[in-house]
């Protein structure tokens, strides 16, 4: 068995190490009581119609400048950001659709189409190929049609 002084030394070492580790957190900027608000990204669509517009807008930006990189005016390449935003919007569509009066069957159509589109957009060719552009357009039309169905049902 270990002697008491050795036991005490080990205990003190453990406590010192633990306190030292906790020094990596907190600090003045963390020492506040204000509840933090949820961050909503700028490109979060308001509804399905807005999602369709945002998809079309980004696909068109990627397609129209197939050889020349789109820039933000300062010369930096905006293409990775547009691609990421396109993937984000497609990934958010099932949630936006679920927050509407769509039935489960109607929602499943949007969900499956979004899953398929997310898989397709995992790698985006430069320049974007015709097949992907066609698939994006079909997807966009599905979102518009679903949105119209919802509008029709609410009238």
């Amino acid at each position, binding site marked *: 068995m*270990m002697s008491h002084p050795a*036991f005490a030394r*080990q*205990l003190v070492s*453990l*406590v010192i190490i*633990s*306190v030292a*580790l*906790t*020094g*990596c*957190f*907190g*600090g003045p900027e*963390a*020492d*506040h*009581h204000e*509840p*933090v*608000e*949820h*961050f*909503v*990204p700028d490109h*979060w669509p308001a509804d399905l119609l807005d999602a369709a517009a945002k998809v079309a807008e980004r696909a068109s930006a990627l397609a129209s400048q197939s050889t020349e990189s789109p820039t933000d005016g300062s010369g930096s390449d905006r293409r990775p950001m547009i691609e990421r935003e396109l*993937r*984000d*919007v*497609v*990934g*958010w569509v*099932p*949630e936006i659709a*679920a*927050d509407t*009066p769509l039935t*489960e069957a109607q*929602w*499943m159509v949007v*969900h499956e189409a979004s899953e398929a589109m*997310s898989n397709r957009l995992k790698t985006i060719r430069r320049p974007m190929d015709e097949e992907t552009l066609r698939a994006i357009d079909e997807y966009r039309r599905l979102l518009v049609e679903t949105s119209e169905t919802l509008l029709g049902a609410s009238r």
Partner: protein
Amino acid sequence: MSLILVSAITRMFQGLVVSAPTLLVGLLIAGVLRYYLGPADTRRLFGGDSIRGLPQAWLIGMLLPVCSIGVLPILRELHRARVRPGAMTAFALSAPLFNPLSLLYGLTLSRPIVIISFALASLVLVTVLGTIWDRYAKREPSGLGGEDSDADATGPAIIGLRRMLALLIFSARELAGPSGALTLLAVSGLGILGAALPYGALQASFEMNDPWAPARMTLLAVPVYATPMMAMGQLGMMFVHSNSPGAALSMLLLGAGLNLATLFWFVRRYGYRAISIWFVSLISLVLLVSYAIDRPLILPGAEPAGHTHAFDVYATPFGPGTSLNWALIRETATRPFHIFEVAGLALLGVLAALGLLFHWLKLDETRFQRESPAELAAYDRVVPRPVLGLTLLGGLIAFSIVGCFAYYPPAKVCLEQISDARGEAYTAATSGNVEHALHWIKQLEDWSRKLEVGTFLRKGEVRPYQRMQGKLIRKKLELLEHELEHEPLEPEEVSEILRQLYAADQRWRDAFR
């Protein structure tokens, strides 16, 4: 009264309460290993010296419902039975990570592949670590090893009712002795964090795109003590807030898997040198795996929330400028606990009192060793120890599976509970009764998870639509929670969120009917 001291004691008390049920289970398992299974069969159960020892220890750990505190009495017993050191570390690290209850809960938190990946990552980790540990930690020879001695392994067996009494006395003495002291050391990690970290200090420390998030979590998680369900709940909040997946894995592996007492116990048993190698290997492996999965496991379209309240429980519970009084401390310390945690604490108290009494009376289990088969009644049958031991361990696993069905009731029962909770939450929110509303919002969130797991258990699946509606309702409930915490309270904003919530709430409940 010192805020630091009160924060530390509050966090330690909360840790003690949540650890009570699994500490009791750990004491029971340790007693079963000692008096029913015996050292030789315990070694066999943990794979002996065969190559399957490490994965076998991992699997046993996954099935037994213990936390990193409940593991401590078992660990002492495994050492006493001279189980291979690698298998001991594999068990010690994997048992607190998952149990049937938390694994099922975890499957509803994100894509099931994420939780399965986490489970497999833990298998890889404990196997590699166990192999390293087997190389550096020498198993002590028979007669020298063990917590006390190996003597009663070969001594006269205790059988019949006396063995059950021996188990009770053993558990009570353990609790009022070494295992109790280790438990206090384990929860002291929470005390240190509660004293050192300012209120809400961890809310923005683990963001999705923060390259330091996994490393930061690895540092935090060493002194942390979390039960498997707590760790899963925190993982769930991290997924909801799109926090770093690497930090989430690190939280699970170290926060749930390890505590200060586990480290301390290993240092005492194997010395600084061996444990340094083990600890450095553990931290390196956790960092390696955490960074490896950090990017690939980010969900497409993940929406970073910018903060999380998941780790508020590791910082001081009192905001700056709080004037401490007994009512506030009591209210904070006794945050809503589950009934089984309160019952566990009461049972633990009785057992500890008995343990102190037994120590004082110098009463231990050896007095039951006088019984011999000749003294048995005619109707008694001597059942071999391994049969009884394995039946008890199997029974415990079966009990935890049955427990899953009880803890996650059918959809109909969940929906009845949800109906009560939503009535309370929405009425309180409308009338501006913030504390009451926040309490019932937490209940609603909890029942929304139970609804999904209960459905999965009975139907074998949760449909994507049901899963999405669950995600939506929790998101909206959290928005309501934030709005209610806003000072000054803005009733119009609360009403607007409630209006959106009613529609989502109806769709959500309809999806599960």
